[in-house]
């Protein structure tokens, strides 16, 4: 990271390969969002009444959690760019911790839905609601695994101010998970 403020980097931070993956994932989620939106326009009543059954507060709480975790991982990247390995580790751990909070809140939410007898096949709204949130949920888990791998490597002194591409790669993926949720939350939980 030697570019100055007025000289733009040619490539996004992290390994370019992860960006292929990020774009593919964004595409998948993007299509899912649009399918949801257009399926809703054909069936507004059903979607509105079903939406009343989802827990907006926990959805919002999870948005706050993910945004915060995203900010934490920004701090982790900043720390390693300055060569502060210890600090980077701590921020990474905080990020993973926030991911854990997201997982717990989400599990409680899923549990409540399943206990209420709601499943993927209940109606069109819940097909979308459950498949999109569950699919995103698995991405949170995958992101946590990636960040954990980065954390372990960092703890062994694998990254430095000069070489920290792995941290940026993991961070970029995590931001994607956050970005997707930022659209998912208003779309599924709020807008009517």
């Amino acid at each position, binding site marked *: 990271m030697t*570019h100055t403020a007025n000289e733009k980097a040619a490539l996004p931070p992290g390994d370019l390969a992860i960006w292929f993956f990020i774009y593919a994932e964004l595409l998948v989620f993007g299509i899912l969002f649009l399918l949801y939106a257009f399926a809703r326009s054909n069936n*507004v009543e059903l979607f509105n009444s079903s939406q009343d059954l989802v827990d907006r507060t926990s959805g919002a709480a999870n948005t706050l959690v993910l*945004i915060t975790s995203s900010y934490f991982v920004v701090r982790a990247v900043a720390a390693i760019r300055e060569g502060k390995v210890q600090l980077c580790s701590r921020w990474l751990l905080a990020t993973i911790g926030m991911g854990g909070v997201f997982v717990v809140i989400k599990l409680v939410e899923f549990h409540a839905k399943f206990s209420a007898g709601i499943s993927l096949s209940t109606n069109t709204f819940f097909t979308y609601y459950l498949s999109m949130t569950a699919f995103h949920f698995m991405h949170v888990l995958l992101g946590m695994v990636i960040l954990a791998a980065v954390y372990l490597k960092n703890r062994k002194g694998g990254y430095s101010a000069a070489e920290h591409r792995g941290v940026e790669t993991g961070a970029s993926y995590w*931001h994607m998970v956050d970005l997707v949720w930022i659209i998912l939350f208003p779309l599924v939980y*709020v807008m009517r």
Partner: protein
Amino acid sequence: MSDTSSEVRRWIRPCTVIWLVLMALTLVTLGIGKLGLSGTGVVAFIMTTTFIKGQMVADYFMGLKQVRWSFRIITLLYMVIVCGLILVAYMVGLNG
């Protein structure tokens, strides 16, 4: 070294502000949800804030502001298309 530090700080400071802005916008969205508001204006407002939130994450958190346009434009277009079409779909639903 100090050059790197100052550069990093130039990146962190806006990120901190953005973090707080994102939190605030999320709470506003929740408020709208709690009140159960609907209608063209509300949907347009939510999608606009969502677009802004997404762009903040892409440009600042992901750091794409420091990257050439060829890459930055991908997420920009993505946000425009996805948010725009969602908006269209909702308009169709409201009128239909």
